[in-house]
Protein backbone atom coordinates (compact mmCIF):
# COMPACT_ATOMS: atom_id res chain seq x y z
CA UNK A 1 0.00 0.00 0.00
CA UNK A 2 1.17 3.55 -0.54
CA UNK A 3 1.98 5.88 2.33
CA UNK A 4 0.06 9.00 3.30
CA UNK A 5 2.81 11.17 1.84
CA UNK A 6 2.46 9.47 -1.52
CA UNK A 7 -1.30 9.89 -1.42
CA UNK A 8 -0.72 13.61 -0.92
CA UNK A 9 1.52 13.53 -4.02
CA UNK A 10 -1.35 12.02 -6.01
CA UNK A 11 -3.72 14.69 -4.68
CA UNK A 12 -1.26 17.36 -5.80
CA UNK A 13 -1.25 15.68 -9.22
CA UNK A 14 -5.04 15.86 -9.26
CA UNK A 15 -4.82 19.56 -8.47
CA UNK A 16 -2.50 20.11 -11.45
CA UNK A 17 -4.88 18.09 -13.65
CA UNK A 18 -7.77 20.32 -12.57
CA UNK A 19 -5.74 23.50 -13.05
CA UNK A 20 -4.62 22.66 -16.59
CA UNK A 21 -8.10 21.41 -17.55
CA UNK A 22 -9.91 24.48 -16.20
CA UNK A 23 -7.28 26.82 -17.68
CA UNK A 24 -7.46 25.18 -21.11
CA UNK A 25 -11.24 25.06 -20.88
CA UNK A 26 -11.47 28.78 -20.03
CA UNK A 27 -9.32 29.95 -22.94
CA UNK A 28 -10.77 27.29 -25.23
CA UNK A 29 -14.27 28.53 -24.43
CA UNK A 30 -13.36 32.12 -25.34
CA UNK A 31 -11.96 30.95 -28.69
CA UNK A 32 -14.97 28.66 -29.13
CA UNK A 33 -17.43 31.54 -28.63
CA UNK A 34 -15.65 33.68 -31.23
CA UNK A 35 -15.54 30.77 -33.69
CA UNK A 36 -19.18 29.91 -32.96
CA UNK A 37 -20.28 33.42 -33.97
CA UNK A 38 -17.92 33.63 -36.96
CA UNK A 39 -19.22 30.34 -38.30
CA UNK A 40 -22.54 31.99 -39.08
CA UNK A 41 -20.59 34.36 -41.37
CA UNK A 42 -21.46 34.51 -45.06
CA UNK A 43 -17.82 34.82 -46.13
CA UNK A 44 -16.95 31.33 -47.48
CA UNK A 45 -13.26 31.58 -46.52
CA UNK A 46 -14.10 32.27 -42.86
CA UNK A 47 -16.91 29.73 -42.83
CA UNK A 48 -14.96 26.84 -44.33
CA UNK A 49 -11.74 27.84 -42.58
CA UNK A 50 -13.49 27.42 -39.23
CA UNK A 51 -15.08 24.18 -40.39
CA UNK A 52 -11.63 22.75 -41.21
CA UNK A 53 -10.20 24.04 -37.90
CA UNK A 54 -13.00 22.39 -35.91
CA UNK A 55 -12.73 19.10 -37.83
CA UNK A 56 -8.94 18.91 -37.36
CA UNK A 57 -9.14 19.29 -33.60
CA UNK A 58 -12.16 17.05 -33.18
CA UNK A 59 -11.20 14.31 -35.62
CA UNK A 60 -7.64 13.63 -34.51
CA UNK A 61 -6.33 12.18 -31.24
CA UNK A 62 -5.23 14.70 -28.60
CA UNK A 63 -2.06 12.62 -28.25
CA UNK A 64 -1.05 13.46 -31.84
CA UNK A 65 -1.91 17.15 -31.34
CA UNK A 66 0.34 17.13 -28.28
CA UNK A 67 3.19 15.58 -30.28
CA UNK A 68 2.80 18.09 -33.13
CA UNK A 69 3.05 21.00 -30.70
CA UNK A 70 5.76 19.33 -28.60
CA UNK A 71 8.02 18.76 -31.62
CA UNK A 72 6.74 21.65 -33.76
CA UNK A 73 7.08 24.75 -31.56
CA UNK A 74 10.81 24.35 -30.81
CA UNK A 75 11.80 23.89 -34.47
CA UNK A 76 9.42 26.42 -36.01
CA UNK A 77 10.12 29.28 -33.60
CA UNK A 78 13.48 28.14 -32.27
CA UNK A 79 12.35 28.32 -28.64
CA UNK A 80 12.41 25.98 -25.68
CA UNK A 81 8.88 25.15 -24.63
CA UNK A 82 8.25 23.74 -21.14
CA UNK A 83 5.89 20.76 -20.87
CA UNK A 84 3.23 22.83 -19.10
CA UNK A 85 3.06 25.29 -22.02
CA UNK A 86 2.81 22.47 -24.57
CA UNK A 87 0.05 20.81 -22.55
CA UNK A 88 -1.80 24.09 -22.07
CA UNK A 89 -1.67 25.04 -25.76
CA UNK A 90 -2.75 21.59 -26.93
CA UNK A 91 -5.61 21.33 -24.43
CA UNK A 92 -6.78 24.86 -25.28
CA UNK A 93 -6.86 24.17 -29.04
CA UNK A 94 -8.51 20.78 -28.51
CA UNK A 95 -11.16 22.34 -26.25
CA UNK A 96 -11.76 25.26 -28.63
CA UNK A 97 -12.76 22.83 -31.40
CA UNK A 98 -15.42 21.22 -29.20
CA UNK A 99 -16.61 24.51 -27.68
CA UNK A 100 -16.98 26.04 -31.16
CA UNK A 101 -19.46 23.24 -31.93
CA UNK A 102 -21.28 23.72 -28.61
CA UNK A 103 -21.66 27.46 -29.16
CA UNK A 104 -22.54 27.06 -32.82
CA UNK A 105 -25.56 24.94 -31.92
CA UNK A 106 -26.52 27.17 -28.96
CA UNK A 107 -26.39 30.27 -31.15
CA UNK A 108 -28.37 28.54 -33.90
CA UNK A 109 -30.98 27.50 -31.35
CA UNK A 110 -31.83 31.15 -30.75
CA UNK A 111 -34.52 32.50 -32.99
CA UNK A 112 -33.29 34.45 -36.05
CA UNK A 113 -36.03 36.99 -35.33
CA UNK A 114 -33.97 38.22 -32.40
CA UNK A 115 -31.08 39.15 -34.68
CA UNK A 116 -33.53 40.84 -37.06
CA UNK A 117 -35.37 42.79 -34.39
CA UNK A 118 -32.12 43.93 -32.81
CA UNK A 119 -30.86 45.10 -36.18
CA UNK A 120 -34.16 46.85 -36.96
CA UNK A 121 -33.79 48.68 -33.64
CA UNK A 122 -30.43 49.92 -34.92
CA UNK A 123 -28.24 47.84 -32.61
CA UNK A 124 -24.82 47.10 -34.12
CA UNK A 125 -23.77 43.46 -34.75
CA UNK A 126 -21.27 43.16 -31.90
CA UNK A 127 -23.65 44.74 -29.41
CA UNK A 128 -26.42 42.35 -30.45
CA UNK A 129 -24.07 39.37 -30.19
CA UNK A 130 -22.82 40.41 -26.76
CA UNK A 131 -25.95 41.70 -25.06
CA UNK A 132 -28.81 39.86 -26.75
CA UNK A 133 -27.65 36.53 -28.15
CA UNK A 134 -24.76 35.50 -25.91
CA UNK A 135 -26.60 35.61 -22.55
CA UNK A 136 -29.24 33.24 -23.94
CA UNK A 137 -26.73 31.06 -25.78
CA UNK A 138 -24.70 30.73 -22.58
CA UNK A 139 -27.60 29.14 -20.73
CA UNK A 140 -28.09 26.56 -23.48
CA UNK A 141 -24.35 25.92 -23.68
CA UNK A 142 -23.80 25.12 -19.99
CA UNK A 143 -24.92 21.45 -19.89
CA UNK A 144 -22.92 20.33 -22.99
CA UNK A 145 -19.93 22.34 -21.70
CA UNK A 146 -19.88 20.23 -18.56
CA UNK A 147 -19.59 17.18 -20.82
CA UNK A 148 -16.64 18.79 -22.63
CA UNK A 149 -14.99 19.62 -19.29
CA UNK A 150 -15.26 15.99 -18.15
CA UNK A 151 -13.72 14.86 -21.43
CA UNK A 152 -10.90 17.41 -21.06
CA UNK A 153 -10.12 16.31 -17.49
CA UNK A 154 -9.86 12.70 -18.64
CA UNK A 155 -7.91 13.50 -21.81
CA UNK A 156 -5.46 15.80 -20.00
CA UNK A 157 -3.98 12.51 -18.74
CA UNK A 158 -2.37 12.20 -22.19
CA UNK A 159 -0.11 15.17 -21.37
CA UNK A 160 1.73 12.77 -19.04
CA UNK A 161 3.27 11.23 -22.15
CA UNK A 162 5.21 14.43 -22.98
CA UNK A 163 6.44 14.65 -19.38
CA UNK A 164 3.90 17.03 -17.87
CA UNK A 165 3.48 16.06 -14.22
CA UNK A 166 -0.25 15.83 -13.59
CA UNK A 167 -2.19 13.03 -11.91
CA UNK A 168 -1.29 10.21 -14.33
CA UNK A 169 2.40 11.18 -14.45
CA UNK A 170 2.40 11.48 -10.67
CA UNK A 171 0.98 7.95 -10.48
CA UNK A 172 3.90 6.76 -12.65
CA UNK A 173 6.34 8.48 -10.27
CA UNK A 174 4.73 7.04 -7.13
CA UNK A 175 4.63 3.63 -8.78
CA UNK A 176 8.39 3.81 -9.41
CA UNK A 177 8.94 4.70 -5.72
CA UNK A 178 6.77 2.01 -4.21
CA UNK A 179 6.54 -0.85 -6.72
CA UNK A 180 2.84 -1.18 -5.89
CA UNK A 181 1.55 -0.88 -9.42
CA UNK A 182 -2.07 -1.90 -9.12
CA UNK A 183 -2.94 0.15 -6.04
CA UNK A 184 -1.36 3.34 -7.34
CA UNK A 185 -3.22 3.25 -10.66
CA UNK A 186 -6.43 2.18 -8.96
CA UNK A 187 -6.22 5.18 -6.61
CA UNK A 188 -5.49 7.49 -9.56
CA UNK A 189 -8.51 6.04 -11.38
CA UNK A 190 -10.68 6.60 -8.31
CA UNK A 191 -9.55 10.22 -8.03
CA UNK A 192 -10.47 10.82 -11.67
CA UNK A 193 -13.76 9.03 -11.11
CA UNK A 194 -14.75 11.09 -8.06
CA UNK A 195 -14.18 14.39 -9.85
CA UNK A 196 -15.71 13.38 -13.20
CA UNK A 197 -18.70 11.60 -11.69
CA UNK A 198 -19.51 14.58 -9.45
CA UNK A 199 -19.30 16.84 -12.49
CA UNK A 200 -21.51 14.55 -14.57
CA UNK A 201 -24.19 14.55 -11.84
CA UNK A 202 -24.00 18.31 -11.74
CA UNK A 203 -24.27 18.42 -15.52
CA UNK A 204 -27.41 16.29 -15.45
CA UNK A 205 -28.94 18.59 -12.83
CA UNK A 206 -28.16 21.67 -14.92
CA UNK A 207 -29.57 19.98 -18.00
CA UNK A 208 -32.84 19.28 -16.23
CA UNK A 209 -33.01 22.88 -15.03
CA UNK A 210 -32.39 24.22 -18.54
CA UNK A 211 -35.09 21.96 -19.96
CA UNK A 212 -37.57 23.02 -17.28
CA UNK A 213 -37.03 26.72 -17.84
CA UNK A 214 -37.66 26.42 -21.58
Amino acid sequence: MISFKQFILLLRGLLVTLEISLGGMALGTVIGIVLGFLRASKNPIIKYGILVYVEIFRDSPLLIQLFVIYYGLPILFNIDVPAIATAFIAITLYTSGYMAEVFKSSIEAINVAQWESASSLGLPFLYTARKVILPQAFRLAVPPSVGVLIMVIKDSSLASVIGFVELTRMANIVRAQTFTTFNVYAIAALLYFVVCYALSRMGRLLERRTLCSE
Partner: protein
Amino acid sequence: MYTIHFSVIFKHINPLLSGLIITAEISVLTMICATFLGVLLAIVRMSGNRLVYGLSIAYIEFMRNIPLIVLLYIVYYGVPSLIRGFILTPFVAGLIAMTLNSSAYEAEIIRGGLLGIKRNEVESALSLGLTSMQVFLHITIPHALRLMWDALGNQFIGIILGSSVVSIITLNELTYEALGIGSSTSRHFEVFILLLGIYVLLSVVLSSIFRYVKLVFLPPRKL
Protein backbone atom coordinates in the same frame (compact mmCIF):
# COMPACT_ATOMS: atom_id res chain seq x y z
CA MET B 1 17.22 27.29 -39.41
CA TYR B 2 15.01 24.24 -39.71
CA THR B 3 13.55 23.48 -43.12
CA ILE B 4 10.54 21.26 -43.37
CA HIS B 5 11.02 18.18 -45.54
CA PHE B 6 8.26 15.69 -46.06
CA SER B 7 10.18 13.77 -48.72
CA VAL B 8 12.29 12.01 -46.07
CA ILE B 9 9.16 10.68 -44.45
CA PHE B 10 7.84 9.12 -47.63
CA LYS B 11 10.90 6.86 -47.77
CA HIS B 12 9.64 5.36 -44.50
CA ILE B 13 6.08 4.80 -45.60
CA ASN B 14 6.14 0.99 -45.12
CA PRO B 15 6.24 1.02 -41.29
CA LEU B 16 3.35 3.50 -41.36
CA LEU B 17 1.32 1.14 -43.53
CA SER B 18 1.98 -1.83 -41.24
CA GLY B 19 1.07 0.42 -38.30
CA LEU B 20 -2.14 1.35 -40.05
CA ILE B 21 -3.04 -2.34 -40.35
CA ILE B 22 -2.48 -2.90 -36.60
CA THR B 23 -4.56 0.21 -35.83
CA ALA B 24 -7.33 -1.15 -38.06
CA GLU B 25 -7.15 -4.60 -36.45
CA ILE B 26 -7.35 -3.41 -32.85
CA SER B 27 -10.04 -0.84 -33.70
CA VAL B 28 -12.30 -3.28 -35.56
CA LEU B 29 -11.88 -5.96 -32.88
CA THR B 30 -12.71 -3.37 -30.21
CA MET B 31 -15.81 -2.26 -32.13
CA ILE B 32 -17.04 -5.87 -32.32
CA CYS B 33 -16.28 -6.78 -28.69
CA ALA B 34 -17.52 -3.46 -27.28
CA THR B 35 -20.79 -3.65 -29.24
CA PHE B 36 -21.37 -7.21 -28.03
CA LEU B 37 -20.63 -6.26 -24.41
CA GLY B 38 -22.60 -3.04 -24.81
CA VAL B 39 -25.74 -4.88 -25.93
CA LEU B 40 -25.38 -7.24 -22.99
CA LEU B 41 -24.95 -4.35 -20.53
CA ALA B 42 -27.88 -2.41 -21.99
CA ILE B 43 -30.18 -5.44 -21.65
CA VAL B 44 -28.94 -6.18 -18.13
CA ARG B 45 -29.46 -2.56 -17.14
CA MET B 46 -33.03 -2.63 -18.38
CA SER B 47 -33.82 -5.88 -16.60
CA GLY B 48 -35.78 -5.91 -13.36
CA ASN B 49 -33.15 -7.54 -11.14
CA ARG B 50 -31.88 -4.85 -8.78
CA LEU B 51 -28.49 -6.42 -8.10
CA VAL B 52 -27.42 -6.72 -11.76
CA TYR B 53 -28.98 -3.33 -12.43
CA GLY B 54 -26.84 -1.73 -9.73
CA LEU B 55 -23.72 -3.56 -10.86
CA SER B 56 -24.18 -2.56 -14.49
CA ILE B 57 -24.71 1.11 -13.54
CA ALA B 58 -21.59 1.06 -11.35
CA TYR B 59 -19.59 -0.48 -14.19
CA ILE B 60 -20.89 1.99 -16.81
CA GLU B 61 -20.34 5.07 -14.65
CA PHE B 62 -16.87 3.97 -13.53
CA MET B 63 -15.64 3.23 -17.05
CA ARG B 64 -17.08 6.46 -18.45
CA ASN B 65 -15.40 8.60 -15.82
CA ILE B 66 -11.79 7.40 -15.87
CA PRO B 67 -9.18 8.11 -18.57
CA LEU B 68 -8.41 5.35 -21.07
CA ILE B 69 -4.67 5.64 -20.38
CA VAL B 70 -5.12 4.90 -16.65
CA LEU B 71 -7.32 1.92 -17.50
CA LEU B 72 -4.62 0.77 -19.90
CA TYR B 73 -2.00 1.00 -17.14
CA ILE B 74 -4.23 -0.97 -14.78
CA VAL B 75 -4.78 -3.74 -17.35
CA TYR B 76 -1.22 -3.88 -18.70
CA TYR B 77 0.86 -3.20 -15.57
CA GLY B 78 -1.53 -3.42 -12.62
CA VAL B 79 -3.34 -6.72 -13.04
CA PRO B 80 -0.24 -8.77 -14.06
CA SER B 81 1.57 -7.35 -10.99
CA LEU B 82 -1.04 -9.00 -8.78
CA ILE B 83 -0.93 -12.42 -10.42
CA ARG B 84 2.39 -14.23 -10.54
CA GLY B 85 3.39 -15.42 -14.01
CA PHE B 86 0.51 -13.65 -15.73
CA ILE B 87 1.57 -11.50 -18.69
CA LEU B 88 -0.52 -9.75 -21.32
CA THR B 89 0.76 -8.79 -24.76
CA PRO B 90 0.31 -5.09 -25.61
CA PHE B 91 -2.29 -6.03 -28.23
CA VAL B 92 -4.44 -8.05 -25.83
CA ALA B 93 -4.08 -5.48 -23.04
CA GLY B 94 -5.03 -2.69 -25.45
CA LEU B 95 -8.00 -4.66 -26.74
CA ILE B 96 -9.25 -5.38 -23.21
CA ALA B 97 -8.84 -1.78 -22.00
CA MET B 98 -10.46 -0.27 -25.09
CA THR B 99 -13.32 -2.78 -24.98
CA LEU B 100 -14.00 -2.07 -21.30
CA ASN B 101 -13.96 1.66 -21.99
CA SER B 102 -16.09 1.65 -25.16
CA SER B 103 -18.63 -0.92 -23.98
CA ALA B 104 -19.76 1.49 -21.25
CA TYR B 105 -20.44 4.23 -23.80
CA GLU B 106 -22.07 1.81 -26.22
CA ALA B 107 -24.31 0.42 -23.50
CA GLU B 108 -25.76 3.91 -23.01
CA ILE B 109 -26.16 4.45 -26.77
CA ILE B 110 -27.87 1.08 -27.25
CA ARG B 111 -30.11 1.61 -24.22
CA GLY B 112 -31.17 4.94 -25.72
CA GLY B 113 -32.07 3.19 -28.98
CA LEU B 114 -34.00 0.40 -27.28
CA LEU B 115 -35.94 2.86 -25.11
CA GLY B 116 -36.94 4.74 -28.25
CA ILE B 117 -38.89 1.81 -29.71
CA LYS B 118 -42.59 2.52 -29.47
CA ARG B 119 -44.72 -0.22 -27.96
CA ASN B 120 -47.75 0.62 -30.09
CA GLU B 121 -45.78 0.06 -33.30
CA VAL B 122 -44.76 -3.41 -32.16
CA GLU B 123 -48.32 -4.19 -31.12
CA SER B 124 -49.77 -2.95 -34.42
CA ALA B 125 -47.35 -5.13 -36.34
CA LEU B 126 -48.29 -8.15 -34.22
CA SER B 127 -51.99 -7.47 -34.70
CA LEU B 128 -51.42 -7.35 -38.47
CA GLY B 129 -50.29 -10.96 -38.22
CA LEU B 130 -46.52 -10.60 -38.35
CA THR B 131 -44.65 -13.22 -36.37
CA SER B 132 -42.57 -12.00 -33.44
CA MET B 133 -39.41 -12.81 -35.43
CA GLN B 134 -40.65 -10.62 -38.31
CA VAL B 135 -41.50 -7.84 -35.88
CA PHE B 136 -38.03 -8.06 -34.38
CA LEU B 137 -36.29 -8.03 -37.78
CA HIS B 138 -38.46 -5.47 -39.57
CA ILE B 139 -39.68 -3.16 -36.80
CA THR B 140 -37.55 -3.34 -33.69
CA ILE B 141 -34.05 -3.59 -35.20
CA PRO B 142 -34.41 -0.91 -37.90
CA HIS B 143 -36.05 1.57 -35.49
CA ALA B 144 -33.49 1.07 -32.76
CA LEU B 145 -30.60 1.19 -35.24
CA ARG B 146 -31.89 4.41 -36.78
CA LEU B 147 -32.07 6.02 -33.33
CA MET B 148 -28.58 4.97 -32.25
CA TRP B 149 -26.79 5.17 -35.62
CA ASP B 150 -25.17 8.62 -35.40
CA ALA B 151 -24.00 8.16 -31.82
CA LEU B 152 -22.62 4.73 -32.71
CA GLY B 153 -20.68 6.25 -35.61
CA ASN B 154 -19.14 8.86 -33.33
CA GLN B 155 -18.24 6.15 -30.84
CA PHE B 156 -16.51 4.09 -33.55
CA ILE B 157 -14.51 7.15 -34.62
CA GLY B 158 -13.60 7.63 -30.95
CA ILE B 159 -12.31 4.04 -30.88
CA ILE B 160 -9.96 4.65 -33.84
CA LEU B 161 -8.67 7.90 -32.31
CA GLY B 162 -8.38 6.28 -28.87
CA SER B 163 -6.29 3.41 -30.25
CA SER B 164 -3.37 5.85 -30.61
CA VAL B 165 -3.03 5.69 -26.81
CA VAL B 166 -2.10 2.01 -26.96
CA SER B 167 1.23 3.10 -28.51
CA ILE B 168 2.27 4.01 -24.96
CA ILE B 169 2.41 0.34 -23.96
CA THR B 170 4.48 -0.34 -27.12
CA LEU B 171 1.84 -1.79 -29.42
CA ASN B 172 3.32 -1.17 -32.89
CA GLU B 173 0.33 0.63 -34.35
CA LEU B 174 0.28 3.90 -36.29
CA THR B 175 1.40 6.29 -33.53
CA TYR B 176 4.12 3.93 -32.29
CA GLU B 177 5.54 3.53 -35.80
CA ALA B 178 5.42 7.31 -36.27
CA LEU B 179 7.48 7.80 -33.10
CA GLY B 180 9.99 5.28 -34.45
CA ILE B 181 10.27 7.06 -37.79
CA GLY B 182 10.62 10.35 -35.94
CA SER B 183 13.56 9.00 -33.96
CA SER B 184 15.35 7.46 -36.93
CA THR B 185 14.95 10.51 -39.19
CA SER B 186 14.80 13.30 -36.53
CA ARG B 187 11.74 14.56 -38.39
CA HIS B 188 9.14 14.18 -35.67
CA PHE B 189 7.25 17.29 -36.70
CA GLU B 190 6.66 16.21 -40.29
CA VAL B 191 5.70 12.68 -39.25
CA PHE B 192 3.12 13.89 -36.77
CA ILE B 193 1.66 16.44 -39.17
CA LEU B 194 1.22 13.56 -41.63
CA LEU B 195 -0.25 11.41 -38.86
CA LEU B 196 -2.72 14.15 -37.92
CA GLY B 197 -3.87 14.13 -41.55
CA ILE B 198 -4.17 10.32 -41.59
CA TYR B 199 -6.35 10.26 -38.44
CA VAL B 200 -8.57 13.08 -39.74
CA LEU B 201 -8.91 11.20 -43.03
CA LEU B 202 -9.83 7.96 -41.23
CA SER B 203 -12.48 9.83 -39.20
CA VAL B 204 -13.94 11.55 -42.26
CA VAL B 205 -14.06 8.29 -44.25
CA LEU B 206 -15.74 6.37 -41.43
CA SER B 207 -18.31 9.09 -40.78
CA SER B 208 -19.06 9.26 -44.54
CA ILE B 209 -19.61 5.49 -44.58
CA PHE B 210 -21.98 5.80 -41.63
CA ARG B 211 -23.89 8.61 -43.30
CA TYR B 212 -24.11 6.67 -46.58
CA VAL B 213 -25.33 3.46 -44.90
CA LYS B 214 -27.96 5.44 -43.02
CA LEU B 215 -29.15 7.08 -46.21
CA VAL B 216 -29.44 3.77 -48.10
CA PHE B 217 -30.47 1.22 -45.47
CA LEU B 218 -32.07 3.32 -42.75
CA PRO B 219 -33.95 6.06 -44.61
CA PRO B 220 -36.11 8.45 -42.57
CA ARG B 221 -39.61 7.08 -42.08
CA LYS B 222 -42.37 8.37 -44.32
CA LEU B 223 -45.63 8.91 -42.51
